């Protein structure tokens, strides 16, 4: 096939240039470091790097940007698994099972599963992108305001999957997220809402400071509380590689996660965080193995990490074929394309620049292999973080959270948001209120409202548009399935209740 020979040509260019390989490896490492630090995102690193790509060859410059992007999303899983603090929003679903694995001494396995899943997700999305980009891009255009609304509502049903013991408390956390998401300038009518005259709130409360607060600061406070008593450090099992058994039982999850992530990525206006949560809730529906989800099931890590890296590849599809960047990271990448005179569009794949495009795809594929190799090596090193005592970890977490929240926008207001949500998060997790639904509410609430009102504006108030378009109907069906699942598992839980209470109280951690 023509595409494969083009892709082979891309690999040829790539491997004939040791500089390019070195630059790519550097970019992946830099991306992983940046991704692992809360507050520093891959997008930010790409934006900072963009001016330097003016000076580089187009292939190198763009390969570097993609390496940083992919590395950043994979790197975010490291602190999520080891410390329960997601490095980027993309890893907010990874910690649901990643951190419990660490508590059970399986940190090394969790990390290597995360890296393996990241690589699989990246590779699957890269292949889809190389082979089917124009087709998928056309199809993704069916995704419009009505579909975004229904997708967001479907996403909100995931709250039930991550709620933990009490559904009511999960929904309450979700409601808090919805309220927080309404603060600021309403994007449809330009109405200031719930700002109470404070100009700092006009732009709303953004996701990352909240995320750093409810996971990072909360985790530090939980550790301080643990230090009050006798602390038993989690052991590290001998394993630093995920077992073949776990890989085998996760294979379905990995494939589904990669496909979900690629699909979500191809739809402009979604993101790595949404892809990871959708994949996680999908995996939960097909439980395998003895360990329940939320208590350290490696499949949870596989689902989240395969999907979020697949979103990276998927989001290249509309960027390259239609010039529509799916989210912030690809917007920077589009800037990189334009700077080097590459005009997005179907011609990009067949025209005079196509060899360059396939070199970029080849770089993305190699970057994902590097994530697997470098990430697995790094996992062996990072796993020892688990042995570091709290009196060292707590100051380090506090410091990085505070600096990280400041670094997002260089302003103190974000630091205040982080502190307030850190305290709220601590109060919540110590009383079995999960914090993940809060994050979901904050991500999906504005998406649901804005697209609902946008669609209503276009149709002049005709709500049937939400039920007449095929893609919306698919998501309505998924919503019904999801609610039936919640209802059935709630009933099952009620039946099993006496047995469950013998397990003793749950550990306190932000989920």
């Amino acid at each position, binding site marked *: 096939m023509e595409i494969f020979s083009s892709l082979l040509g891309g690999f040829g260019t790539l491997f004939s*240039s040791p*500089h*390019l390989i*070195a*630059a790519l490896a*550097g970019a992946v490492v830099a991306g992983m470091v940046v991704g692992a630090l809360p507050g520093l995102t891959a*997008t930010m690193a*790409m*934006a900072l790097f*963009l*001016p*330097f790509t*003016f*000076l*580089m*060859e187009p*292939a*190198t410059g763009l390969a570097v940007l993609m390496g940083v992007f992919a590395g950043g999303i994979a790197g975010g899983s490291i602190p999520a698994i080891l410390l329960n603090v997601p490095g980027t929003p993309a890893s907010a679903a990874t910690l649901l099972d990643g951190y419990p694995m660490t508590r059970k001494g399986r940190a090394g396995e969790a990390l290597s599963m995360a890296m393996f899943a990241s690589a699989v997700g990246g590779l699957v999305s890269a292949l889809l992108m190389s082979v089917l980009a124009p087709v998928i891009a056309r199809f993704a*255009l*069916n*995704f*419009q*305001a009505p579909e975004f609304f229904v997708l967001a509502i479907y996403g909100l049903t995931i709250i039930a999957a991550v709620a933990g013991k009490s559904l009511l408390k999960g929904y309450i956390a979700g409601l808090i997220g919805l309220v927080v998401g309404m603060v600021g*300038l309403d*994007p449809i*009518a*330009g109405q*200031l809402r719930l700002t109470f005259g404070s*100009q*700092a*709130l*006009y*732009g709303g409360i953004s996701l990352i400071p909240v995320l750093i607060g409810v996971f990072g600061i909360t985790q530090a406070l939980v550790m301080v509380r643990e230090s009050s008593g006798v602390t038993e450090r989690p052991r590290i099992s001998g394993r630093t590689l995920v077992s073949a058994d776990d890989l085998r039982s996760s294979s379905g999850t990995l494939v589904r996660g990669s496909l979900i992530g690629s699909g979500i990525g191809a739809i*402009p*206006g979604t993101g790595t965080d949404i892809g990871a949560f959708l994949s996680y809730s999908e995996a939960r529906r097909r439980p395998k193995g003895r360990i329940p989800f939320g208590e350290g099931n490696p499949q949870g890590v596989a689902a989240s990490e395969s999907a979020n890296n697949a979103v990276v590849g998927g989001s290249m599809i*509309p960027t390259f074929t*239609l*010039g*529509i960047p799916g989210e*912030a990271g690809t*917007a920077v990448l589009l*800037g990189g394309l*334009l*700077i*080097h*005179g590459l*005009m*997005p*569009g*179907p*011609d990009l794949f067949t025209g005079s620049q196509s060899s360059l495009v396939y070199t970029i795809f080849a770089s993305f594929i190699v970057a994902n292999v590097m994530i697997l190799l470098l990430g697995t090596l790094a996992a062996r090193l990072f796993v020892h973080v688990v042995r570091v005592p709290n009196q060292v970890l707590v100051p380090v977490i506090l410091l990085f959270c505070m600096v990280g929240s400041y670094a997002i*926008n*260089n*302003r103190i*207001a974000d630091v205040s948001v982080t502190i307030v949500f850190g305290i709220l998060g601590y109060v919540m997790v110590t009383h079995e209120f999960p914090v993940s639904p809060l994050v979901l509410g904050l991500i999906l609430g504005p998406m649901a409202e804005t697209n609902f009102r*946008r*669609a209503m*504006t*276009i149709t*002049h108030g005709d709500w049937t548009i939400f039920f007449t378009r095929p893609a919306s109907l698919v998501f309505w069906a998924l919503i019904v399935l999801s609610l039936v699942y919640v209802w059935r598992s709630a009933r099952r839980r009620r039946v099993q209740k006496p047995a469950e209470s013998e397990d003793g109280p749950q550990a306190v951690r932000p989920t």
Partner: protein
Amino acid sequence: MRTKFILAAAACLLLSACADTATGGSGAGGESDFPTKPITAVVAWSAGGGTDVMMRAFAQTAEDHLGRPINVVNKPGSSGAVGWGEIAHATQPDGYTLTMVSPEIGFLDEQGLYDFGLDDFTLITLLNEDPAALAVRADAPWDTFEEFIADAKADPGAISVGNSGPGLAWDLATTAIERAADIELTHVPYDGAASATQAVLGGTLDAMAFSVGEVHPQVEAGEMKLLGVALAERLEALPNVPTFVEQGYDVEIGTFRGIAGPAGMDPEIVATLNDAFVEMAEEDTFADVMENNSFGIRVMETAEFQAFFEDARDLYVDLLRESE
């Protein structure tokens, strides 16, 4: 290629090191000693956005003309209110802290979003102007603005036009089109050009009023066509696209970006900076970045820029009052 990068980075370091020891104002042509230390350039938007890309290209090129490093700092938040508010209220007008302004500083105080206005800034040099354009899908039923108007008149409000947010520049550009052609359109706010483009290509949105640059890739790829450009004369880059003016409708509106500082700057320092920036705008490195990002270069010196901005402000405020 990697080595090329390292060399370039080393050259940058060397340059800035030399600049530190040089006697100030080497290329600036002013009489005073200004500048004697690095300049901070505040971007009121996130890294990677349009203003940020332009500011970084500007800073990289202008450094050589001022003989001092220019450090770009992003202070995004609250639709620009954070970064610009700091310049307007809490910055010394000594010329060492500058920003890149756009039309918003002239009219967002009208809506209570800013607690500062044009008078809180000293304008220095205009660098860019991007006119609004009315873009539709390539297979849309209209080939000319006339046909578009005819349909809009036949069924008022039936045609939907996307913009970047209520009361912002592109929403007001839509109002300007409505006013000039005496038609009624449905304004639909999106998060930005990307999501509006997705809606136009996907067929739920009929048209979008954004800057030419933001739909340029889709126009080049034959996915979209332009019904008119809101500029006095045709764009060099798009000689086949007619202006609204030549079709008989007085719509001249768009966005522009220029360098400014806090109000009350010393005219001599302003002159020094202006001279350097005007020279800078002729450099290929700046022009290349502008061209590749489809940003239009339009240079105006201080006095002209001031008058231009005041006219634009009056137009925007007028449109804003009309739309409410």
